[in-house]
């Protein structure tokens, strides 16, 4: 089969995938007796129609950037990290332990410390699957799935019996000290006039953008990044070039876990301000869709994370104001993953004839 031009592969294939996913979702909405046009307008209005909506959309975008980058870094080393969900929950534990350890005087001190905690705990949770994959050949997909469930049980245990303050009913940590409270968009000069105090989007958004740049530099401008990509493209060639298999798998997974863990500065430190059960709320899994949609490039991840942030906030509003259940988000998410990740060959076949015809003339 003829290869598509690069721009078609990078831009057209994801775009057609999202159109297909949207069309099928529209059919499902029709089938369950809803109105797709109304659904779309409620989604746009709810996610992008007001500063309040933008505040939530960008909050979700922040989380999805981190998990999307996590999946991306592992993917370049040909490791499919489904464990971002568990790694993000452990990152939340790291954030909580750091925030509760000291009476932090100012967020500017608390944030870097919490980031270290989040990254370390997230990376630690990826370390065992990484080591097993590198040394024992255990399949990373299966082990990271198992570690998601183990993380869930571990946090359930810790939150119910160890970290819950005496006298509190719900399984959660104590509230973080006010010095560890991150500035939201309302507190940031220049943005304070636009956003109300109730929006959850916070300074982590800018950390996420920095992370995008950092991952781009890492993957395309450093020796380690070159080794990761070379190994991901062709294991044997990388081996002949003297690139260590163990090093690439373990380090790429540690970075991946750290990025997933870093997500929790947004949701745990920036929004909830205490650690709750199931803190990641599926963002780790959305990272898979974001990475695939974004073609495993930080810029693509940023755009795809924004798209999913929009879908998440818009979907929540849709669930609130129409009869269409909020679970439509999961359907869309599944369809995007299916078309961009598993049926991408079909999408390519669909558009190849158009390019062939153009060349024939």
């Amino acid at each position: 089969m003829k290869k598509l031009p690069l721009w078609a592969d990078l831009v057209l294939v994801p775009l057609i995938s999202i159109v297909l996913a949207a069309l099928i979702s529209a059919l499902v909405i029709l089938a369950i007796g809803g109105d797709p046009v109304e659904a779309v307008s409620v989604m746009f209005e709810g996610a992008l129609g007001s500063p309040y909506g933008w505040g939530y959309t960008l909050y979700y975008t922040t989380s999805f950037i981190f998990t999307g980058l996590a999946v991306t870094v592992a993917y370049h080393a040909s490791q499919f990290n489904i464990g971002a969900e568990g790694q993000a929950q452990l990152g939340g534990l790291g954030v909580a332990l750091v925030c509760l350890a000291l009476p932090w005087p100012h967020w500017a001190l608390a944030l870097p410390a919490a980031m270290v905690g989040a990254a370390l705990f997230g990376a630690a949770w990826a370390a065992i699957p990484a080591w097993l994959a590198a040394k024992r050949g255990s399949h990373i997909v299966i082990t990271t799935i198992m570690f998601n469930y183990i993380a869930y049980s571990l946090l359930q245990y810790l939150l119910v019996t160890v970290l819950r303050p005496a006298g509190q009913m719900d399984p959660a940590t104590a509230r973080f000290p006010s010095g560890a409270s991150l500035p939201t968009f309302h507190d940031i000069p220049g943005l304070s006039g636009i956003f109300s105090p109730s929006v959850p989007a916070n300074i982590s958004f800018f950390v996420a953008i920095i992370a995008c740049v950092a991952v781009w530099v890492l993957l395309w401008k450093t020796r380690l990044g070159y080794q990761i990509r070379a190994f991901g493209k062709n294991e044997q060639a990388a081996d002949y070039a003297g690139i260590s298999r163990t090093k690439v798998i373990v380090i790429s997974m540690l970075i991946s876990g750290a990025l997933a863990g870093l997500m929790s500065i947004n949701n745990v430190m920036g929004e909830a301000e205490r650690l709750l059960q199931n803190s990641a709320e599926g963002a780790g899994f959305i990272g898979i869709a974001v990475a695939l949609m974004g073609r495993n490039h930080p810029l693509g991840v940023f755009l795809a994370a924004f798209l999913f942030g929009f879908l998440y906030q818009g979907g929540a509003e849709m669930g609130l104001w129409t009869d269409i259940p909020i679970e439509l988000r999961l359907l869309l998410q599944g369809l995007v993953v299916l078309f961009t990740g598993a049926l991408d060959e079909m999408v390519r076949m669909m558009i190849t004839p158009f390019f062939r015809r153009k060349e024939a003339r």
Partner: protein
Amino acid sequence: MDYPTLIAILDSTLRLATPLLLACLAGLYSERSGVVDIGLEGKMLMAAMASGVVAYLTGNVWAGVGAAIGASILFSMIHGLASITFRGNQLISGVALNFLASGLTVLIAQALFHQGGRTPALSGNARFSTITLPFEAEIRQVPILGPLYSDVLSGHSILVYVALLAVPVTWWVLYRTRFGLRLRAVGENPESVDTAGISVVGMRYGALVITGLLCGLAGAYMSTGLQAGFGREMIAGRGYIALAALIFANWHPWRALGATMLFGFLQALALRPDVLSNFGLSVPDAFLDALPYVLTVIVLAGVVGKPTPPKAGGQPYVKER
């Protein structure tokens, strides 16, 4: 722990292990043919929803089972389309199908019944009734072994016995029939099967149909046997536990029975916190919940014998020209 308590736990072990066993055997067919399937969870969820809906609407549990199998095979075929025909990534396809199922099941159940994504409670002929095995009353009198037969083995719905029967049948199909030989070969070395003039694509699709069928039964058992109706996310990770059991069993039907019974026993134990505390052990529930996953990681680490998955698993077959 006294004997009646043990009997009670073994009884619920068998009930809880049944969906795991059916799903585990489902995964076995797919993976033995070289198609990795992490979409067991999604197929079970679709099947549970379909059987809950249809059994309620028709009042007939068998209609529900039919719908469950249909829905599950439909998902299996999407997986086949992506991973066999279009040679896509089998892992990603499985993940996608799980997301799809989580969304679709609630959307459909909510649109039909407006009960927050649940189906109405099933009763009467819309559920499976329990089957009493022959001579149950007579054998009960036998000490020690009697209760094992009468209370543990007898008194379940038919799908429990179907699941148990599926183990020897799967063994026989896999190791004593021409189809089984080809199935195993296509998962180990598809080139050789192709050379022999047998369609690799056909074999793999065939395996996926069986996978869909068994996942359909597993899902149907969840909503019409184990519970009375469909509830959102009711599979609750059982598809992944079945996958874990499959690795634990090293892709072998008899060991699949052992692995799923072990995991079922752990689930049954987690429902009876009083038992372990009577032993003076204070084991947190969370630990029992996590144990199947921890055990699987230990197995994957190769501590207890190296797992030997089918060699061609996960790779789409491309005919050389």
